């Protein structure tokens, strides 16, 4: 039972992060390898807002989320917009460089030591006993709830929302979408903002649960195989991929070797890519530009 709970929590973490990769890739065909670092930045922003509005945790959360969404949009407007029309590889490497930059900058600003935003917000992270003898911490339960909420609203947004439809259109045929009056730059900036916001949400909850330091960016990178396994342009795929990767990781750690945790997602990734190069739910595409 505990095993199932662990899988559910890890699935929630991976799914929340993976949908950031999927959103950006689906809309702008850019692979954002700085997602882990952006998510870490979101968690650090929570530290700042917690210092500002320590007594009102709702305000602190909302402010940090708003800021991270803004940061994401800024990244597009001031950096990735310049890479339009460049090689796909150049755009990816720009995000890699951004990740390196953010890693350095967060240490410079907040130091490399571990922080505990939960304490700053006076939230006690108590354990909840579940039927079957399993236990789950409050923040981990919140992670699962957030994941469900985020995915339902994202599905609804992309399916029915006016801006969601525009986003899908921009992702499918940018040229036609632009001709129909969709402002591509606004859409792309929105995708980056939304993706960073959701990533930051995951980052904040993980930081509340386990503390916050530089290792968080690594979690972001480990969630990336989940996005690829499901197919980089499918939200449902991200969910399924997260489940597969999380289940494999928890099982192998439990039954084989705890040291495996670092490498399982990548082993799953290779296994899947060899059989289904475009992931389980991804659309087959021609990638001629490198």
């Amino acid at each position: 039972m505990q095993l199932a709970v662990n899988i559910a929590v890890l699935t929630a973490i991976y799914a929340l992060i993976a949908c950031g990769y999927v959103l950006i890739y689906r809309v702008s065909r850019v692979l954002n390898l700085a997602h882990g670092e952006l998510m870490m930045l979101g968690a650090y922003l929570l530290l700042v807002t917690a210092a500002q509005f320590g007594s009102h945790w709702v305000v602190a959360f909302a402010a940090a989320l708003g800021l991270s969404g803004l940061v994401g949009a800024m990244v597009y407007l001031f950096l990735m917009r310049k890479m339009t029309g460049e090689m796909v590889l150049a755009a990816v490497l720009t995000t890699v460089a951004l990740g390196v930059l953010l890693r350095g900058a967060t240490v410079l600003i907040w130091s490399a030591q571990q922080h505990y935003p939960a304490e700053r917000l006076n939230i006690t992270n108590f354990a909840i006993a579940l039927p079957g003898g399993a236990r789950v911490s409050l923040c981990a339960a919140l992670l699962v709830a957030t994941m469900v909420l985020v995915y339902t609203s994202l599905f609804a947004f992309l399916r029915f929302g006016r801006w969601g439809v525009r986003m899908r259109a921009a992702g499918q045929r940018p040229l036609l979408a632009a001709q129909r009056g969709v402002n591509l730059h606004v859409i792309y900036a929105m995708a980056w903002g939304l993706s960073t916001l959701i990533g930051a949400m995951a980052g904040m909850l993980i930081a509340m649960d386990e503390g916050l330091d530089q290792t968080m960016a690594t979690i972001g990178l480990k969630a990336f195989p989940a996005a690829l396994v499901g197919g980089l342009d499918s939200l449902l795929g991200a969910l399924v991929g997260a489940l597969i990767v999380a289940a494999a990781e928890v099982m192998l750690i439990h039954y084989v070797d705890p040291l495996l945790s670092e490498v399982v997602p990548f082993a799953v990734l290779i296994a899947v890519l060899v059989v289904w190069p475009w992931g389980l739910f991804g659309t087959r595409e021609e990638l001629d530009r490198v």
Partner: protein
Amino acid sequence: MSRVPRASGHFRTGYVQDLKLLQRPLERWALAALLAVLAGLPFLASPFLLDLANQVFLASIGSLALMVLTGYAGQVSLGHAGLMAAGAFTVGILAKELGAPFWVTLPAAALVGSLLGLLFGLPSLRLRGLYLAVSTLALHFLVVYCGGEYEARRGYSTGIVIDPPSIGGYALTSGRAWYFVLGLAAAGTLLLCLNLLRSGTGRAWAAIRANETVAEALGIGLAAHKLLAFVLSSLITAVAGALFAYYRGFVSVEAFSLFLSIQYVAMIIIGGMGSLLGALLGALFVTLFPYGIEAVLGALPGAQRYAGVLFAVNYTAFGLVMILFLVLEPLGLVGIWRRIETYFVLWPFKYRALAGRQR
């Protein structure tokens, strides 16, 4: 390799002349002068400078290999550090377990490298672009994990210590001796790459990079040439890793983080994609960059404040420089160099004639 006429009045009149690596007397003199400086350097430089030069040589071997793979054959790899780790660990394990000398371990590292290259290259038959980059990234993690597992299982949790290679009782320990060994290795790699790239194989790679479909239609075996690119590049990289292990006398997984892969990619980006000179310039730039940052910080007031977070300053500045190059100068250092060269070649005119214009 397209060549711009480098000086007025210099025309090639035959194929033999066209194939020469050094075409003009000036180039020959420049090379001779460079060699003289490089040969004299170890007798004048301090041990610290010598170590820097050795690091640059090692980095150049790796960056040349990556340049051939990514810059010429067009196959993206983010797993370069994994291959270096494979070479270094082959040396470490063979030397530690069997006490093997260097003339066994180096070929073994080359063999492991080429086998891994085959493995790294297999996804390239089905995957392209981003997906390929990602699968090499995944393989990097697998290789490094295996190395770490070996360290942990055998109880070398801090790393493996390796004795310096010795020939007939003479151990290679002094920085000066290493300077010549690594310098020759780098020069050999450069020559190998230069000649490979102007052979049929090199032209096939260029065709694959330009357009796979067209290349296949022209009768170029896609799978064989892609795999060959991976195998050759990985072989050179693994040997570079092995040399690195011997030079440091120490192997540990910490040295082969993802950041090292990023640094190698940065070398070929900053140096300039699709140019061997770029690979060398990039290796020089990226290797010396952290020392430059340290020197600058040391010169600034309040240097103590940054002493503890030097690596963070380094990361920040490195990321920034990489972004600046990607956004402002996609052709890299070579692009800047060519612009200056063109300026002088064309002087007093400003623009190259449009017909037959070269990049």
